[in-house]
Structure formats: C-alpha cells, structure tokens
C-alpha cells in the first residue's frame, strides 16, 4: 500500500485563533481513515484545507503526489467531498442537482446520465429523483449530499461528519454505504466524526484530534494498547441525584485512573473493573447515592480519548 494522502505539519489560523496546529498524518490507498475528535477540534478546517477550499497558513499536503498549495486544480480532480453542511440547491430536484454537480466535475453525455442514475439508486432516492430537495427529510438530504460527492468516482473521498443530526435508520444506511464504497469500489475514505462507535465500526486506522492537535494515530488495537490495561465502569444514577460530591472520593481510590461526570452518570476509568467494583459501590452507598445500572466496558476509543485528554468525547 502507498500513501494517497500525506499531510505535513498543517497549520491553519483564523485571525488570532489557530484551529489546526501543525498536524501530520498519512492515509494509505484503499483504507478508511477516521479523524475522531469533539466539536471544534479542527476536523472541518483540516478537510477544507485538504480539499483546497483555502490554503493552509503553514505546511502542505500531497494528494496522489500533488500539493494542495501548488497544484490545487490537479488535487480537485482526484478528490470528492461530502461536506459537513448540506450543500445542495433546494429549488432543484435531486436529479437536477446531480446533473449540475456532475457537469461541474467534468462529466457529460451518457456517462453523466448513467452516473446520476447509479447514484440515485445507491442512495435510494430513485423514487424522489424528480422532487425538489426542499421537500426532502434531513436523512434524504444527507444521502443526496453524499451522492454528489460520489458522482465522478473520486479516488479519495472526504466525508465530514456525514451522519450528524439524522435518524438511526438513515445513519445505518450511510455507514453501510461507506463500507460498501470502500470494499467494492476500493475507494479511499477520510472520514471525520465525533462518534466513537462510527470510528470503531468503519476505520482501519484512526487519528484522534483535539484542539487542533493530533494526539494519537493508529489502528484501534494499537490505540487501545496505548491506554494499557484499562476498562471503563459506567455508573448510572437516578435523575434526582447529584454526582458531583462523590468524584473526589472515587479519584482517591487506588486503581482508579480518571473519573468523568456526565449528567447523572459517571465514567470511571479503572485498571481492573471486577476487582474494584465492590469498593466503588460501597463508596456510592456511603454518599447516599443509589446506583441504577452498572456497565463494564472493554477498552475502547472513548477510553483512549478520556485518558489522553481527561475529557469525554461528547461534552
């Protein structure tokens, strides 16, 4: 495998704010690479620079050997983009949108027609092809938004949080499409998300990004190994109970690495869940907190993020 994308020390500043602080990574031809990070981490900014929407403040990236700074036009022929925000003409029909964007990507004649129909089928929008996009549900718009990015069969596809704000069913369909594109069409995909589960399900490799910095890169197994032997205890309390008071007590316990409070639940990163569980429940009872449910999670990307940043992915 060779790298289709090489990012070298990419920096992007918006005035005083540095949104991307010198990140470097590679994406191999044929893989799904996820950029995992919370809102504001710099994912969209990175994708925008890589898709040549605007140049980086410093650094560069090579896509199929072409520099995004010096050969943006060549880069654009190679890539497809599914932007985070839906970028479609609401007063055009689905088919008209596809036709317009297809032509803009240089398709024409029979190929254009054929690709439009294929994409309509792929996104399950054939029956709605002649309806204006403004009559579509959020999920349908998302699917068409993805379809536009696929029209010209790009070698490298950027997908920026393509599942944000849609129903579970549409989300499922999109995730399956992504896997399908990769496996059957051999498309390389750079996928950004703040959902750990998506990154876990889809990607061959994951880059964890926070505050504009790449804090870890690797396969899931590699990343989890970084955390060492760690499991997460998830404790759910009743809605009338305040969890704040118990945090210092838990943090003082031996074998506890991190404690994160989220509404009425606690995530406790521990060395050995089974061993420490009785002591944790005892502490809770001592503080008059009634535990509703207890869950033990195997080491996962969430835990990695938790350990590296001290924060939960979703805040």
């Amino acid at each position: 495998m060779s790298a289709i994308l090489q990012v070298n020390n990419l920096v992007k500043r918006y005035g005083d704010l540095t949104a991307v602080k010198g990140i470097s990574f590679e994406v191999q031809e044929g893989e799904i690479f996820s950029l995992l990070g919370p809102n504001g981490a710099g994912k969209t900014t990175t994708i925008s620079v890589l898709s040549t929407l605007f140049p980086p403040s410093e650094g560069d990236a090579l896509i199929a050997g072409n520099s995004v700074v010096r050969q943006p036009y060549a880069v654009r022929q190679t890539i497809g983009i599914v932007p985070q925000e839906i970028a479609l003409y609401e007063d055009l029909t689905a088919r008209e949108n596809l036709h317009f964007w297809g032509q803009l990507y240089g398709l024409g004649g029979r190929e254009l027609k054929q690709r439009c129909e294929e994409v309509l089928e792929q996104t399950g929008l054939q029956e709605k092809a002649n309806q204006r996009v403004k009559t579509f549900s959020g999920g349908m718009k998302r699917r068409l938004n993805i379809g536009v990015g696929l029209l010209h069969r790009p070698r490298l596809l950027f997908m920026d949080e393509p599942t944000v704000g849609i129903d579970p069913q549409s989300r499922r369909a999109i995730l399956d499409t992504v896997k399908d594109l990769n496996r059957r069409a051999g498309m390389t995909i750079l996928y950004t998300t703040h959902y750990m589960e998506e990154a876990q399900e889809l990607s061959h490799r994951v880059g964890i990004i926070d505050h504009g910095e790449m804090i870890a890169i690797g396969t899931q197994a590699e990343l989890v190994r970084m955390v060492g032997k760690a499991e997460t205890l998830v404790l759910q309390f009743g809605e009338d109970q305040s969890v704040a008071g118990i945090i210092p007590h838990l943090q003082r316990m031996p074998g506890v690495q991190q404690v994160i409070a989220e509404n009425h639940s606690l995530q406790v990163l521990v060395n050995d869940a089974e061993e420490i569980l009785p002591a944790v429940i005892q502490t809770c009872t001592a503080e008059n907190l009634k535990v509703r449910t207890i869950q033990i999670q195997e080491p996962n990307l969430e835990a990695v993020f938790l350990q590296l940043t001290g924060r939960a992915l979703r805040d």
Partner: protein
Amino acid sequence: MKKILLIAAKDLRLAFRDRAAIILMLAAPFLLTLGMALVTGRLASPGGQSSGLSNIPVLIINRDGESLGNALVETLQSAELDELLDAQVVEDEEAARRAVDEDQVAGLVIIPPGFTQSVIPEQAAIIDMAAEPVKLQFYANPARPNSSAIIETILREFISRVEEGRVMGMVSVFQMLTSGVVSPAEAQAYGDEMRQLFQSAQEEDLSVFEEAGTLNLKVIGAPEQESVRFDVMAYMAPGMALLFLMFTVTYGGRSFLAERRQRTLQRMLTSPTALPQVLAGKMLGTYLTGVMQLLILIGGSSLLFNLRWGDFWGVLALILLATFAATGWGLLITAFARTPGQVSTYGSAIMLVFGIMGGSFIDLSMLPDFVRLVSRITPNAWALDGFTILGLGGGLSDLTRPLLGLFALGCVLFILAVLRFSRRRDLVQ
C-alpha cells in the same frame, strides 16, 4: 466557458423557479403600470378609441406658396393646434412618403401648385372647365387611422370653411378640441358629422366647386385598425420595468452570498472550477435573468396592452445595455455586503432611490438640475431617455448617447466591483 454557462443557466432556472422572485420581477411591474394607468384615468375602455392623442406628427408639402396654401400651413401650425398636431413643412416628397410608409408620421398633406389659383381665380369670371382638377392631397398612414382621421377632419373643415369663404374664422372646432370640451375621440365623430354636413352643403349651394372639381380632398391609404395606445403606459411601463430590473440584479447579487451561506459556493470551489469561473457564471446568470425579465415585460406589454416600444433593434440594444449597467450595480452592492440580508436591504434602498432619481415615478424634467446630474449614475435615467427617444419614433441610430452612457456606467461599476471582490478574503473561509 462551459462551466460559466452551466452556472449561469442554473441561476436562470433557479430565479424563474422562485415564486417570490417572479412576483417582484414580473407581476409587480405589470400591475403597477396598470394601476398607475388606471389611477391617472387614461386607460380607454377595451376596444375603444385611442385617447390622449397629441402631437400627431404630420408633414406638409406646400407647392402652392400662395395665400390659400400658406393659410392652410399656418392653420396646421397654429397655436390652437399646437398640442394636437406636430406639423412640419418639408420639401422632399419622396422622403415624406417614406416617412408615412415607415409609420414615422401619421400623414402627409400635399398642397398642389395652383391650389390658391384654382379656388380663388384672379379673374373670377373665368372658370376654365377644362383645367386639371387641383386636389388637396392627404396621404394617410393606414396604421394610424385615428390620427389620420383627425387630420382629415381638420382638412375637410378647412376646405369647407374655404368654400364658405371664411378662411380666417376657422378656429371653433379646434378650440373645442384643444380646450378639452371635445375629446379627440369625439372629434372623429364630430368629423363624421362635419363630413355629412359638408356633403349636404356641397349638394346644395356649393355645388359649383364640386362640379368644377377644383377643390377636393383626395385621401390615399385605407385606414386599418389602429392599435390602442396608452401614452401614460408608454411612459410608465419602461419606468416600472427598469425599477424592477434593479430588484433582479439585487436578487442575483444576493444569490451569490446565499450560495456561500448554503455552502454550494464552497462545493463549487472544491470541484475543478476556479473562482473567476464561478464569479463570471454568477454575473452572467444575473445578467441573463435581467434580460429575460425585460424581454418578458416588454413583450408581454406589447401583446396585452398593445403598447408600442418603438424600433425593435433600439429596444433590444437598450435591454442589453440597461441590464449590463444594472448588473454592475447588483455586483457592487454584493461586493460591499456581508450577508444576503444586507444585499436585500441595500438593494431595496437603492432600487427606490434610483427609481425616484432615475425618473421611474416622476418626470425627470421636474427635478432640480443637480438631481438630474446625479441621476446619471442610475441605469434608469439613461435607459428611460432611450425608451423615450424610441417612443417618439427614434431608431437605433438616435440612441448613441443613452447606450454609451449605460455602457460606460456598467464598465465603471464592474471594475469597482471586481476590485472590491479581489480584496475580500472572507468569501470562502
């Protein structure tokens, strides 16, 4: 170039799909024109007579040059008939006939040589029965039956007065006409009455002239149905069309910033399409939308109201250049606005100010000099000048000034806008 056209075509389609835009681009100017015409009470009933005919252009060739011929010329050019007729004495009969054929004037009056002589022989006793009959000729424009009917009525009136020997006292009918007691429409009916009176008079005591054939009116050209003309609308319609042309170009500018907001601009700029191509496509789209709007408005008003806009090529040239200049304004507004909302706000303000300054609502000649001078920054003023020239019968060659004005204005605005755009770094980030 293909991509520019693609983007322009997309914008044209979107504009004509937007119901709100259609209302403002097409329905509003139509209804306002109609409303203004109704308010001013100048709209004739359907199929009725033309109303408000004034300054009927008529040419006179005076081959007689003696007292009676001169008297007729004087009459046609008299102060009493000043408003009704626009009579001009010319020499070249060929050219004059052509002017009638080309519908530039409503008719041609030819006073033949010996006209005076034949009516008032110096030796009254001798009437040469064998002499060629000397006929006053009226070469009427069949396309303007109402106008020519009025001229004919005047001529008949003149003749009848001559025949009654009261050449100098012939003001009554025209006074009635011009003071508004009798409308031109009624004048025609009156003319018919006159004709009957005249005929009966001929049959009775004035038969001697008829028999001698010396005094007669020969009318050439059979009247057809003259299109109904509304002079108010002829002025209002271009004014309104230009007013709402400013809306259209604002709409185009707005759509540029709206594309940024709805992210389609960014999507275009990550496809193999360069920013200048996108800009050119958006400009062309706005321009074509404006041209379409004017074509529909002008074509529609020609069909629905029978409004005559004048020389085809002149109208087309004005449409193309007025839209060019207006698009320049749309661009400039966009170049200085941050959000689509701002474009709308600035745009509406400018549309109104330009409408007033540019003469869409009021006659420019009523405004103070400096306003008239400042009004030259509006496409409205230049284009309205042009449409007025065409309305008065001018052609493409008479439009040099307004066309040049619009072109220069458009160029300056485009340059300013492009300079401003090139300095904006916020377009995509």
